[in-house]
């Protein structure tokens, strides 16, 4: 089977200057494929989050190059990057980060309204579908702040999926969840990758979670030490 590259990096490195100059990630080169469920692991402080923010296009202060599809992302203006994120990247964070004043439905709809590809009615319809797929249809009209942690996390996954992005990124998306909710999120990710061909790149501390993903990249001291970690 031929694997299509959806995201790749060439020699990405990043320095922090406070409190002292320090290279948090160094010479990161890897490829992520279409429909792949990829996990990033490593000890605390090894640079997983730092790398993910570079991949997310939100952090632009790095060296090396980032490509999404065949497009060079590095060096683009912030407004272009915002549009790329809106269209092609979905995020799921450890903390749920929903907009508290809005209903769950609205939280899911907002990125689609920003994209403006569909009519309002279509967006609403799609948002309901995503929520339904995540078992949250009956919670749709509740304010986001009134949901449990696991439910909120699923709402944020629905939000990440609303624009059918090529890539979904997560920084410890299950870090705050119990084992039952972790399992739910895991199944959703697997389904997204394998049934819909979207790529998942998730940072995790959870060995079981990583073990069950398609491929695991391991970092240590800001460097990749394994592209395809095998768990014993």
């Amino acid at each position, binding site marked *: 089977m031929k694997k299509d590259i959806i995201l790749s990096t060439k020699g990405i490195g990043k320095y922090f200057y406070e409190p002292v100059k320090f290279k948090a990630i160094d010479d990161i080169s890897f490829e992520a494929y279409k429909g792949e469920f990829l996990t990033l692991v490593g000890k605390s402080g090894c640079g997983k*989050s730092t790398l993910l*923010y570079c991949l*997310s296009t*939100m*952090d632009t202060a790095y060296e090396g190059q980032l490509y999404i599809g065949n497009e060079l992302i590095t060096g683009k203006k*912030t*407004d272009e990057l*915002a*549009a*790329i*994120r*809106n*269209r092609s990247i979905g*995020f799921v*964070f450890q903390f749920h*980060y*929903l*907009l*508290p*004043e*809005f209903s769950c439905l609205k939280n899911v709809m*907002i*990125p689609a*309204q*920003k*994209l403006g590809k569909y*009519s*309002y009615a279509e967006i609403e319809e799609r948002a309901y579908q995503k929520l339904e797929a995540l078992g949250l249809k009956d919670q749709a009209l509740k304010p986001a702040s009134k949901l449990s942690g696991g439910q909120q996390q699923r709402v944020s996954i629905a*939000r990440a999926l609303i624009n059918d992005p090529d890539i979904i990124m997560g*920084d410890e998306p299950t870090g705050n969840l119990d084992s039952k909710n972790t399992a739910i999120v895991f199944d959703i990710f697997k389904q997204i990758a394998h049934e819909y061909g979207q790529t998942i790149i998730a940072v995790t501390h959870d060995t079981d979670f990583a073990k069950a993903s398609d491929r695991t990249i391991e970092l240590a001291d800001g460097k990749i030490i394994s592209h395809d970690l095998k768990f014993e």
Partner: protein
Amino acid sequence: MKKESINVEIARTHIRTRRKQTIVAALGVTIGLSMYIFSSSLMSGFSKYSKTEMAKTIAHVKVYKEDQISKPLYNYADSGMVLISNPRTVTESKNINDPYTLLDKIRQQKYVTYAAPQVNVDMFYNNGESQLKGIGSGVIIADADAMFNIQSTMLAGNLQAIATNLDAVIIGKGVAEKMNVGLDDNITISSSQGIVKVMKIAGIFTTGNKSIDESKCYIHISTAQQFLKKGATYITEIYANIIDDDKSIYYANQLQQLTEYKVEGWETTYADTLSGDKIRSIMGAIIPTVILLVAGFGIYNILNMTIIQKMNDIAILKATGFAGKDIIRIFVMEAVIMGIIGTGLGLGIGAGLIKVLQHVWVGGPSGYFPIYYKLSVFVSAAIMGMVITVGAGFFPALKASRVDPVDIFRK
């Protein structure tokens, strides 16, 4: 139905979920604006009142012969010599040549409502020992009354007496008091040309202006000419009223093209008094402007606070694809909403205050409180309200647009 932009929707939700702060911010603008409207309208009402009061008793435009400065008889400039001489005003005759032709020409102008000739005489009132310096206005009373509405200033007597009676005089209230004379008494009047007449007091008037009341009298124009030992064509001034007393300077310039004599609008003559009005209205605008600026700071503060509390939301919006300019739009929109609420209420309350005051009776010659709705005041208030709120919103919004989502998510 066209769906509103998502930026507006977010802004509206922020406003709706923080009603209290919004209202506090808006009220600052409301108070500032209503004060501004109120005091500007008050000032312009007072100015207008005092202006109309002034315009009542003086002519809008005056034509007279200007004092001339003496010129050297010989022009030494070409010969290279320097002549040092004392320039003096040459008091030739103050007469306007051929005044009735000029008067007719002035009367033919579309914008002139009335025009009347006048002869002014410097004079002394005498009654036994006491003597008072004064000025007599020789008038054709029908014309003068049409122009200056003298009838409305009459306290006693009959204005028409001086229409035909060359020995009748209408004196100011102050003259009557100082000379201790009353209606139908006789008063001796002398001019600097040495003419002395005993005249009958046919009426007493008051303008409300003490120095005028203590010096002025009206006499028949021929009487004035007699006092000056001049003939019937001797006219010192032609007064004209025009359709718009606010444009006296403009129309004076128009009339100036008809004659070589000096034409002066009343707004030029009384520039000093009018500039007092101007200073008063500037002072009146300063306090509300300060209040508005404070209100601007209020909005600035509240938006700043909102932004600090909403760092997470801003980071999420940016992560999900909102650009910096979208964030600016959202928060400026919030300021605009606060501004619209504040400005709307401010205009309403300002208008209400005017309405209330318009029904306050102050008595005296002014009657009701002289305060009016003036469109320009409301327009400038609305513009000011919006400029200040948008200005106050812009800087916090700019700050919000610069929030780095990575900084927020790293915490």
